[in-house]
């Protein structure tokens, strides 16, 4: 399983370098990219191929967003400048960097916090490593929402990432400057979302920008069922020890129809994940007071009727111990993959096949249920850079 080595993948090229390339095209100009459909390694799941799409959140969600000021604001829990200097130093910034940052910023003092308003030049010209250290520090404070949950950019080609949007070139150039590499070296984060508003000229452009930034990447995955002779093994894989036996009549029929075409694996998912695949939460999903999160998504993967349990539910660990067994590779369809970091479980997703997992990356309404590569899921969640994976297999029903 190549994705066990996700932490050791080499750093990608910087975004600014990539966007400066001659062949980099802007979204408005580009048409189609050359190679998008990728083949996954063959395995017991059959022959898979996939491509990436970007899901736009519903328009009504955008109107619920409180539009931030384009003036960057950092909040520190400090009561005076010395404390602030100390915090910055401990975050890995040099004394010179800290001093420069403070001297070029406007500071507003409250009773327990200091609000720091850096200059545009400070924000824009910060070295990537400094930005990474500083923003990791800002992520510790609840008040810095864009730093706690940055936008994850899973690739180095920004033009491709923004394809199909109306985001203007100056904004993309800003983002190329502002994005910083994740701690695990997979992809980039963008926290300076408010800052990017400086190049918008009207409300429509603001909405377009946020719509683009809030797009969520997802995979469309197709299975080529192969020959009739190979079908029993493939059927065994997708039926997951009969936990997903409902898929068998369809697989059997697809093979027998001998059409030679690929079948979308949405058809091979159990009912609940199929129902939610590639959609954003709706009001009805939170009518019980909570919106589904990663544990809700994992725990209910094979269930026909979802049970309202969440990552912070008191019964979470006992449910895992009672209904799952810890397992080792090779993983099987439906295995629950937990991401552990900093001594706690930060996320979980469901193994589908090869490098592909089924995930909901947050409990918020901007996080749809999607298929992703596990590398991207780790990149998205691993803020510290120490994520380790553990897998649990659902026990068969008695």
């Amino acid at each position, binding site marked *: 399983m190549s994705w066990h080595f996700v932490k050791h993948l080499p750093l990608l090229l910087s975004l600014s370098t990539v966007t400066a390339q001659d062949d980099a095209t802007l979204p408005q100009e580009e*048409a*189609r*990219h*050359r*190679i*998008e*459909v990728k083949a996954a390694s063959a395995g017991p799941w059959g022959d898979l191929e996939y*491509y*990436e*799409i*970007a*899901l*736009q959140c*519903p328009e009504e969600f955008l109107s619920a967003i409180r539009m931030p000021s384009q003036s960057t604001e950092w909040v520190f829990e400090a009561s005076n400048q010395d404390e602030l200097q100390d915090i910055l130093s401990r975050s890995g910034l040099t004394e010179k960097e800290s001093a420069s940052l403070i001297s070029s910023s406007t500071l507003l003092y409250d009773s327990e916090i200091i609000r720091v308003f850096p200059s545009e030049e400070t924000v824009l010209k910060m070295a990537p490593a400094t930005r990474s250290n500083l923003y990791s520090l800002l992520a510790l404070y609840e008040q810095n929402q864009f730093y706690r949950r940055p936008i994850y950019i899973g690739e180095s080609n920004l033009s491709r990432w923004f*394809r*199909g949007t109306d985001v203007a070139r100056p904004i993309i150039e800003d983002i190329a400057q502002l994005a910083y590499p994740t701690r695990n070296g997979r992809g980039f984060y963008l926290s300076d979302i408010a800052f990017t508003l400086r190049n918008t000229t009207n409300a429509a452009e603001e909405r377009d920008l946020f719509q683009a930034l809030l*797009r969520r990447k997802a995979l*469309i995955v*197709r299975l080529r069922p192969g020959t009739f002779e190979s079908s029993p093994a493939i059927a065994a894989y997708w039926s997951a020890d009969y936990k997903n*036996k*409902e898929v*068998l*009549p*369809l697989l*059997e*029929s*697809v093979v*027998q*129809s001998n*059409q030679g*075409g690929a*079948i*979308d694996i*949405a*058809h091979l998912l159990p*009912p*609940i994940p*199929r*129902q*939610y*695949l*590639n*959609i*954003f939460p*709706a009001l*009805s*999903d939170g009518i019980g007071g909570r919106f589904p999160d990663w544990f809700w998504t994992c725990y209910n993967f094979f269930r*026909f*009727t979802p049970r309202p349990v969440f990552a912070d539910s008191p019964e979470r660990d006992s449910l895992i111990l009672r209904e799952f067994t810890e397992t080792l590779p090779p993983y099987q369809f439906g295995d629950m993959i937990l991401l552990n970091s900093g001594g706690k479980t930060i996320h979980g997703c469901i193994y589908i096949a090869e490098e592909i997992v089924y995930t909901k990356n947050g409990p918020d309404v901007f996080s749809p249920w999607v298929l992703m590569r596990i590398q991207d899921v780790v990149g998205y969640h691993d803020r510290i850079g120490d994520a380790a994976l553990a897998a649990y297999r659902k026990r068969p029903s008695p």
Partner: protein
Amino acid sequence: MVTFRAEGLSVRGSRLTARPTRFPSLKQSTRTLLSPRPTILLSILLSCSATFPIAAETSTGIAQSHASAAGVSEGRWGRLEYFEVLLEPPTSHLWANLYSDRSIWAFGERTPDEAIEHLKSLKISPEVIELVKTEGKWQTHATGLELQLSDAIIEATRPEDRKTLSAWFFTHDREFFNRLIVNLEGRDFSAFEGKVSAKTLELIKSLTFERGKVLSIMDRAYVIRKLGTDEAEKVKFLRALFSTRSLVVRLAIDESTDLEPIVDYWSRGGINPGVKSILEQVKLTEGVDRIDIVHLLPPLPRRYLFGFTNLLDVGPKNTPDCFWTSIQFFKRNASPRMLDPLQLNHYINFDFEEASGDLQFGDIVCMFDKTTQEFIHSYVQISDDIVFTKNGASYARPYVLGLKSDMLSVYLDETEYLIKAYRRKAGI
């Protein structure tokens, strides 16, 4: 008004098969479960007197034999390319009574002599009547008089006898009729070919009979009996008998595709969000020319597509059927309320409006018996020739995307239909 017209009697497709009896909690509710949906009050529904204009089109389609296994549907919805899959119910959904090898005809409150006289009045073959007298075994149960049939009686029964008897059972004992009669989808034997032995297939062919444009079989128990101890062949026979034609459907998109009208069609004025970004991305992607429409369906049909009834969806007195499937098409989650004994117009009259103009994605099409005003079947419009439906309440019938012609092939008996279409209101 255009209506279907064929000869003979009708089969109510929403009750093509009997209820499973392997689920004890449901036993006591059999009659209720088998009873038809509450007959819709047409006086209310027909206050809008316009009828749906596609009947002639579908009627023409039905007259043809089963089409090729792959095809194209092109129109306002774009270019849909599809191939057929034949869904056989898993063995877990074949309930014990289906394996019964006891062939019976039911005669209600009649005595044996009265039943024989009645067979004569129906002009059943004299040979059959003589065999009934000599080999038939009469038994009286709580449900009435039953005649247990010998092999000779069944073998002597002519197709026209079966047609006559099925018409009489339909009129006088609907529940028995529903247990007895199975209509073969597509009016052919393709579901059995390659599945059962040649000998079994010939036996099946010898027992089928036509009712209008429907091909039926009423001697399932006889086939089971003839298969003796070959349990594997029995399973193959039953799975093929209840197999349902379905379609894997993809929307073709290339660089020249004008997405705007297609997005409009599938989004249904915002009722079905999320379509636009997916289609735009597909268009931008090199090497991807089509997207499975499972991604364009609302959450609920997506959840159920190609699946069979799950016991967790079943209520004490009802089980998901065609109307349950249709009325909730745009809903996020299925509602238990839809299993309550509601009048059909309970939601139709308030959350829907009668469809006008061309049918749109997600419109519900309801079929009524023109004579009795009874609700017969409903389905959801996907494109003009592709529908989303569940044919009946049976556990053996899945939720499918299918050709309208295949779906209607089990309904076009002698019944004259009244067709009406309803459109969900925005914001409901």
